[in-house]
């Protein structure tokens, strides 16, 4: 079972009380992966918020023909780093793909429906977690924007 100590280290769940962490823990399960395993694909319906426990996971933008998207990762995630924010935010579709990047590894899968039920009964948890989820989306946006700006910049320079 995933320990409260670990859950507390995950940024999305930092600042929660032990009772609140216990509630989150009841929504968690673990899964192993190997290098190259697909954890989810862009476009899938998300059921979990994910956290790397051991090893590395890469987030990949699959758009064909676009710099930074052809199988290249836009983000490499190590232990305690969350991903799969789309599970908590409409329209609830994964925007990127996640692939195992280390020889072996382990992830924590947090049931999104269970988390939403906690938010309904305890708005403090909802406010704290969703504030961090907003920050997580923002981080991914920056990473994607870097790729797009680089590509557009190259396009413009090539026209000079």
């Amino acid at each position: 079972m995933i320990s409260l100590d670990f859950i507390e280290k995950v940024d999305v769940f930092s600042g929660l009380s032990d009772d609140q962490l216990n509630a989150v823990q009841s929504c968690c399960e673990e899964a192993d992966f190997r290098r190259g395993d697909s954890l989810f694909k862009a476009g899938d319906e998300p059921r979990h918020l994910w956290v790397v426990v051991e090893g590395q996971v890469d987030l990949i933008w699959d758009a064909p023909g676009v710099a930074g998207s052809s199988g290249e990762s836009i983000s490499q995630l190590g232990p305690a780093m969350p991903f799969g924010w789309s599970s908590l935010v409409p329209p609830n579709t994964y925007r990127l793909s996640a692939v195992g990047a280390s020889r072996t590894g382990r992830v924590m899968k947090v049931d999104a429906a269970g988390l939403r039920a906690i938010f309904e009964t305890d708005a403090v948890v909802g406010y704290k977690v969703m504030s961090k989820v907003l920050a997580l989306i923002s981080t991914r946006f920056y990473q994607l924007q870097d790729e797009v700006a680089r590509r557009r910049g190259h396009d413009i320079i090539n026209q000079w």
Partner: protein
Amino acid sequence: MSDLDFLKDVDSFQGLNAEQLEQIKAGCRMLEYQVGERFFAEGETAEHLWVLQEGKTDLRFELPGRPTSEENTISTAGANDTLGYSSFVPPYRYKLSAYCTTRTCRLVRIEKTFLLNLFEQDPQLGFVLVSNLASIASAHFKQLQRSATDAPPATVTITVHMATCGIAAGAREVMLALTDELARTGRQEIHLASGGCTGNCPSHPNITVAIEGAEPVVYQKMTAEKARRVFERHVVGGEVQTDLLLAPSTP
């Protein structure tokens, strides 16, 4: 009826009750901007949440050493849209710049610290608002992905036929109107040129619109107003204005 009544229709505030909405209104300040004005810049410290009441706003990234243009637009915000959620996430800096693209933009500006105090007092309000902002951020993420995969826009050449006969009929005013429209949109794939007489003097002023991949078309008896319509609806909107044509497919 208060100027702020429109807030009840704003996505960011859906799910709030009437009392919570009244609390938010207490922190609102109305502001107005003119076309081309930037009301926050990429990289600036983000201290406000903004809600657009009227007008349109482009969210653009900046390229060093280059003037802003529509090319850099990630998304366009309209009435009831919320901007500036970066004020709630580290590093608390705007990720994009906001430019007013209509004659005027009327906005509500709310201080971040005011909202954070409300969230402390009422976490349910904080949960609803932050969840709504996450949905908006998610939509921007999707728009960014889409904008990066869209094909580049087709090149357009607009020729204003400026021979003596054309100028006598008002071609200079037509050219000025088109120059104005082009500057306003900042679209770098659109080129404006002057050309000679089309040989149809009674139909002057003429302009020819040539869009890459399509047959050029010639418009007749242009005025500044008609030229603006052709620019907006044909050059930008892709819809040939058949009632103004000299003859279809005649260069």
